[in-house]
């Protein structure tokens, strides 16, 4: 009788172990997948920027330095190597684009150009998608970490290993400040 109970308990523990292991593995894969999904959206942004720059170059003759900053940041982001470089380059590109949009407010005639309005809509949508992809990544990392750190599971993880604590995607300090638009008029009349 006692033997049956002991066997039953061991069975339950093994079952729990299998279930927990599978859940941790699934979460680990989902975290990796969502990290790659951010890349998909970033690439989309890289592809949209050359179009925008070429279309507005003619109208905004006096904003050469802003445009150049965007082009350089994009080149750096495309050619970035490891993860740290990528994150830095992409944040700089976000800042440069923010400045560009702020400056475009000074040119109301751009509003009547349908191409520019469409490209701006696409870029806004892409920025939103990048934001959502990062949000999803952070949410999944939080879930993964919670699953690792909760009471019975942390014993399991310490015993088995193979599950590491993932890192959150953090905004850099400069990115948290809103870009200041330079609205001084620079015309050489």
């Amino acid at each position, binding site marked *: 009788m006692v033997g049956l109970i002991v066997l039953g308990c061991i069975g339950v523990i093994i079952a729990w172990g299998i279930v927990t292991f599978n859940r941790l593995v699934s979460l680990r894969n*989902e975290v990796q997948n969502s990290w790659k999904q951010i890349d998909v959206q970033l690439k989309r942004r890289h592809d949209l920027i050359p179009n925008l720059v070429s279309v507005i170059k003619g109208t905004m003759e006096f904003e050469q330095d802003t445009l150049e900053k965007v082009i350089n940041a994009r080149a750096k982001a495309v050619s970035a190597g490891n993860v740290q470089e990528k994150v830095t380059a992409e944040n700089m590109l976000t800042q440069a684009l923010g400045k560009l949009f702020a400056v475009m407010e000074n040119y109301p005639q751009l509003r009547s*150009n349908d191409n520019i309005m469409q490209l701006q809509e696409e870029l*806004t949508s892409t920025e939103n998608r990048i934001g959502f*992809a990062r949000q999803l990544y952070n*949410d999944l990392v939080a879930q993964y970490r919670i699953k690792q750190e909760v009471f019975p599971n942390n014993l399991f993880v310490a015993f088995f290993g193979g599950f590491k604590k993932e890192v959150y995607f953090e905004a850099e300090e400069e990115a948290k400040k809103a870009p200041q638009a330079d609205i001084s008029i620079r015309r050489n009349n």
Partner: protein
Amino acid sequence: MPLTFIDIERQKSWKIGLFFIILLLMYFTSAMVIMLVAFGDIFEKDFLRGVFSSFYIFITAAVLAFVHFYLLSYDAAQNIRENLDAADLDPEDELHKRLRNIMAEIHVATGSKRKMACAVIPGQAMNALAVDDFKGNALIVITEGLVSRLSREQTEAVIAHEAYHILSGDCRESTLAVSLFGFSMPFIEKIMIYGGRAYIFSFILFKLGYLLNLFISREREYRADAGAVRMTRNPLALAEVLHLLSKNWRGTGLIGSELEGLCIVNPRLNQLDETEGFFADLFSSHPPIHKRTEILLAMAHASITELDVKRRQGAREHMPKETEKKYYALDAQYVWQGPFSITELAALPWFSTLTWVSDGSETITKASQIPACSEIFKAQIEQAEGKTTDYLCPVCQQHLFKQHYEQTRVYQCKYCGGTLVDGDKLPRIIIRRENAWAEKIKAQARATLKENQQNYIIHSAEGKNKIISLRCPKCKGSMWRTFYSYAYLIEVDRCICGAMWFDKDELSMLQCMIENKMAGEESGAN
């Protein structure tokens, strides 16, 4: 204590799961009671065997009911699309393109788990529904009124709410519950006819089941609100949408009563939905809107008065700016015309770079000298280079230009100012309100209304008695001249292909009339 959306979601999930199990148990119990009473003689012989037989009978009946409902709602997405006249998103419409981008954004935010389609009901009502059928198609249906009146963040909040319903299986669960209920109720009622106190017990149990169903439906709405906030991290936008919905037409009469459970706000204008109190809370499928708004505002640390202030400010931004600069222009007959704003100058057919323009002061210069005017010409050239279409203006036989008006595509003639509008685009233009109307248009609208009302006949052009029918630019058929409707007496030319031709200013006058609700006055002459 304001709970965060994470807590709300978790709590409601527990509640919903628990009560759903209770609901299923209630159905089974009442069915068993019926079996016991109706087929009591089975039990007399051998009690255990009786229990098993009735169990088998009930399981068979439930499976049959489920299969029946499965087949009915197999293609529910397509059925609802047809019933509600929902159209696919128009690739040339700015707001529909924005909607498609928003669907893609929510798709990213939910981890791309399911592919969701979107359709739009052309109508002024403001509501949204989510449908998930057993074929695997997920569909979000929105009304044009909602699409046209919300900002980008607000539309995201609505789509996130509906997407959450689909992803959390709410639609399928409620279909299951409805199928069980729908099968059992008529059965019970038939048995009730034969009387018997025992049946009353199961009858009561079923009625309680119905109330429980409504309770679960309300909890689902709260959970979907919390889920939407988790997706967009913007509780204020959803609160603003709900606040706006509570003050506008939500499609009562447009959306059938069987679909009301799927909507974001109950389309049936029901006092129960708005009041508080025990009975009100008991019988409605949606929670009261102000309660939902309160929870969301608590998350956003804002208050309802702030929402109202914001709404009024937004409305004020649509007023015409009085400080716009006015110009006078000298026409071909050497008469000064004006005052015009820049946009009106651009619309003048005889305006060119050589026109003399004055801004009211003593200086009179050629239009090319004024920087604001040169912008107009630049824009005109850019427009001309891309956008001429093959369609010819029915009046002046010149090429029509593709234009964006109220964020959708129309064709305009640069010479006579007339506009060609497709049949499916016109309701959108009427619903959307982008500009405020200049006094000139309003006055013209009133004058036209009065004049047309005197006779109720179409005025012929240039004093000729015969009306020459125009040729439709799209299908080359004959257009016939008629009033837009007997309430709004603007002359339009209609074609059987659905296109409508408006002469100069008539489209603006029509919009102005409908938005300002200018109806005719009763006159004694008629």
